[in-house]
């Protein structure tokens, strides 16, 4: 029994001891938890303190460190700039120098700010990881993850320091911006957006010593006021320059080649519409359209610009009809005007070639100062006044042009012929071959005048030659899918707008418009397509086409043959044109359409496609004229 009692006692004691041990263990755990919580809290406040703590470095030391680092950045920046110029681009050496300057820039900024120095490096590190680690990936899913994590990484110090680390984090974006401008921007634009960057933007980035500019941004004020002033000016200029570099890539034609210039296209568009109802009113500023479209519709900036410009012009047209915007009537007006635009574009079968900056021109110039608009003679006195004019001729392609001058005076149904004196000689014809010419002439009435007349000068220019060109893409024998891929590529680059698909000519007196393909303005030609060719002549100036001496659409020399129709659809001569031909109503040549057969060389070839430009010559005579009112008062002698 006693043994049993002892065992029961021992068991109770053991149980009590176990309970005690358990209690002790729980207490230990509690203490450990408290300690851990304290440690954690201390760690948080330590990190917070680390970010917020002011470094106890004397201002003199800070100032000299900042001065030293910024001067070093300026000098190394200049060295890197000259290396880049000498070595014509980014080399391994300049690349690593850029990275070093990037780190140095971070250090300089860290010295410059008093608090939270380390936070400056966070965005820098994040950028390095993105740009070099992930090769600047723009994959949406990746960007989402990366930006989310970046925000967390950036927010963490800001939270721990109660927002004080946010400012230096923003500072940290400055070296990132400069590194991006220095080495990243151009390849990034080309690689990710496939933008054919213009030499202008290229030069804008290439000819700027970015790190030197950064050095000027961070250099502390000195006692030398002149230096401070120059540095301040450089900073302002630098900010403007950076803004320009960042905005320019968004603008077609300035930042990147849009293959065919958008603005000339709009002016062409205006011309076409002007045929219906006069010149288009001024719409939205193209620059504003560019910027707005770059943000609102980055996928199709050119299309968006065209739409915005058109819409703004149409709104002005409808507003000018006193229709209130927002009403149903206003919408109807917009729809009607839009339809007119479409019609106008269909009419514009040829266009002006913007790549010809200098074109053949001839015009009469009257010097108001020396022109005898009003002459008083006494009765019986012979009128010996010579009416002077000058014909200014630009002949950049040195064509051989013959000028034949005439003049006359009209008053109602009365016409008095004039006698032309050319360059002081009694001749009316001259042939020029030089580039710039000024031909002075005078006109003298062959009979006496009395009253108000209209003096008309005329010059007929013979043997003028204007060459039009037309671009076509040959895509050979391909599957429908392959064809579509090529068409997609080319419609984004080579044939961006309809005007790229029609014939173009210098902005001269007249031009031949021509087109061929499945339809006349379809630029894509496959091996098995049936090709129709059409042509017309446009009077592009204010004078008159007298006579078409010759026209030739040079497709035969490229191996094409006329499958059906008259051979005169591609070349002909001695065409008399009606008086009514003008820029509004192109003259459709006789035998102007036929069907062509594609040469073998443009049906089968190795390349995915071929681009060919075809030319057509128009040789013609053209008359320009100038009218000016004159008065001759005859006074009776007493």
């Amino acid at each position, binding site marked *: 029994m006693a043994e049993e009692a002892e065992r029961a006692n021992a068991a109770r004691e053991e149980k009590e001891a176990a309970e005690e041990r358990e209690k002790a263990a729980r207490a230990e755990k509690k203490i450990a938890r408290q300690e851990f919580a304290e440690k954690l809290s201390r760690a948080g406040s330590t990190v917070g303190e680390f970010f917020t703590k002011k470094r106890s470095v004397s201002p003199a030391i800070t100032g000299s460190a900042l001065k030293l680092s910024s001067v070093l950045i300026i000098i190394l920046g200049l060295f890197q700039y000259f290396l880049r110029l000498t070595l014509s681009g*980014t080399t391994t050496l300049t690349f690593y120098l850029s990275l070093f300057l990037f780190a140095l820039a971070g250090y300089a900024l860290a010295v410059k700010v008093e608090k939270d120095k380390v936070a400056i490096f966070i965005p820098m590190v994040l950028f390095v990881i993105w740009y070099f*680690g*992930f090769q600047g990936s723009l994959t949406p899913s990746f960007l989402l993850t990366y930006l989310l994590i970046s925000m967390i990484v950036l927010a*963490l110090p800001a939270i721990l320091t109660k927002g004080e680390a946010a400012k230096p984090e923003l500072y940290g974006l400055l070296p990132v911006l400069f590194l991006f401008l220095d080495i990243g921007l151009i390849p990034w634009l080309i690689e990710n957006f496939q933008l054919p960057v213009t030499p202008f933007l290229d030069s804008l980035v290439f000819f700027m010593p970015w790190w030197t500019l950064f050095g000027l941004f961070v250099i502390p004020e000195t006692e030398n006021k002149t230096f401070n002033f120059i540095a301040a000016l450089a900073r302002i200029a630098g900010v403007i320059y950076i803004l320009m570099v960042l905005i320019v890539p968004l603008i077609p034609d300035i930042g990147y080649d849009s293959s065919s210039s958008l603005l000339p296209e709009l002016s062409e568009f205006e011309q076409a519409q002007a045929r219906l109802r006069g010149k288009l009113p001024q719409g939205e500023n193209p620059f504003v359209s560019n910027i707005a479209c770059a943000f609102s519709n980055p996928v199709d900036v050119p299309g968006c610009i065209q739409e915005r410009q058109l819409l703004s012009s149409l709104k002005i047209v409808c507003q000018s009809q006193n229709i209130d915007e927002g009403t149903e009537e206003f919408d109807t007006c917009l729809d009607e005007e839009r339809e007119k635009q479409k019609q106008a574009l269909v009419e514009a079968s040829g266009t002006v*070639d913007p*790549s010809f900056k200098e074109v053949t021109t001839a015009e009469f110039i009257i010097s108001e100062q020396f022109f005898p608009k009003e002459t008083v003679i006494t009765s019986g006195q012979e009128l010996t006044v010579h009416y002077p004019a000058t014909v200014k001729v630009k002949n950049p392609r040195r064509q051989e042009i013959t000028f034949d001058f005439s003049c006359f005076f009209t008053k109602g149904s009365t016409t008095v012929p004039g006698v032309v004196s050319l360059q002081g000689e009694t001749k009316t014809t001259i042939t020029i071959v030089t580039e710039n010419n000024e031909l002075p002439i005078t006109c003298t009435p062959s009979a006496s005048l009395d009253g108000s007349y209209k003096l008309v000068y005329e010059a007929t220019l013979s043997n003028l030659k204007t060459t039009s060109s037309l671009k076509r893409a040959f895509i050979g024998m391909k599957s429908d899918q392959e064809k579509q891929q090529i068409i997609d590529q080319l419609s984004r*680059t080579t044939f961006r707008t309809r005007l790229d698909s029609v014939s173009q000519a210098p902005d001269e007196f007249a031009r031949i418009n021509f087109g061929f393909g499945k339809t006349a303005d379809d630029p894509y030609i496959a091996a098995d397509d049936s090709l129709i060719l059409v042509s017309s002549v446009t009077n592009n100036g204010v004078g008159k086409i007298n006579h078409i001496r010759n026209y030739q659409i040079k497709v035969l020399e490229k191996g094409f043959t006329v499958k059906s129709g008259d051979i005169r659809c591609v070349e002909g001569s001695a065409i008399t044109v009606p008086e009514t031909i003008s820029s509004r109503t192109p003259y459709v040549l006789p035998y102007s359409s036929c069907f062509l057969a594609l040469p073998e060389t443009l049906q089968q070839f190795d*390349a995915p496609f071929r*681009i*060919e430009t075809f030319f057509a010559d128009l040789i013609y005579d053209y008359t320009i004229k100038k009218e000016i009112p004159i008065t001759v008062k005859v006074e009776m002698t007493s």
Partner: protein
Amino acid sequence: MKIVSIIALLLISMLVISCTQGNKQIADFKKEGIGEVDVSRQESYFPRTAHQGDTFDMGLALINNAAYDAKDVRVVVAGFDNAFVDLIHEKEEKALIAGRSLFDQDGEEAQFQFQGVVNDLLGAEFKNQNYFIYLTYNSKMEFTPKPCIGLRQIYKNIQDQGCSIPEGATRYNGQGAPLTVESMEILPPSASGGEIKFILTLRNRGKGNINTVQLDKAMIANKELHCQFRGEPEMTKTVIFPEMKTLEVVCTALLETENRYTTTLFISFLYDYERVIQQSLELKR
């Protein structure tokens, strides 16, 4: 000490970012991640302007960042207007550009040179030329996962060697090529002795286009695996890769045992790849 802890914080952030990124951008020779024949920016040169009568040179430097060799590499320049530019030759070929391997972890580099002459611009001040460089080659991709196969976990009293069959598809980071097996779903049989199915989703994660894909070899533990493209007859081993879409391959094998165990799959694909690089050149008088 504090600086060290902050740097550690940053490094951990970097590590987190690297690990949470869904796919490794660069393939390594272990056949993981995404890799293809890339243009070496530093070594390539494309002039921006050329004057009438000038001869100009263009150089395309390629580096094979894939874990496989690129065969029949062909570079074609197209898009120059033949009226204004004469290319001396428009095509260059190379039989092979070796991929990344244990012996060459950087992949082979190759240079392609082209030369052109600017003709008379016939009075025009300038002409803008947008042209394209077409890079095409053939290559392969091997998918070698080690899945757990057998009956599902709901069947008790079977040996499982500690492996389990995942519910739903397992995602993969790429196999060192632009063509990737994005995910694989295992559909075990509902009873012993049935067929196990592997449904592979293929995706193009490269910068170019995959034109056709061919099923090359398919093995499960050294035995043949029957695979076919979904929606295609079993005989069709080559299909056109749908642009911007995925392709499904269904493989089946007869289970020899109802036990679960880890085995090795080997499925390889051949594909032909095309990448188009756009450039521009301004011709000046």
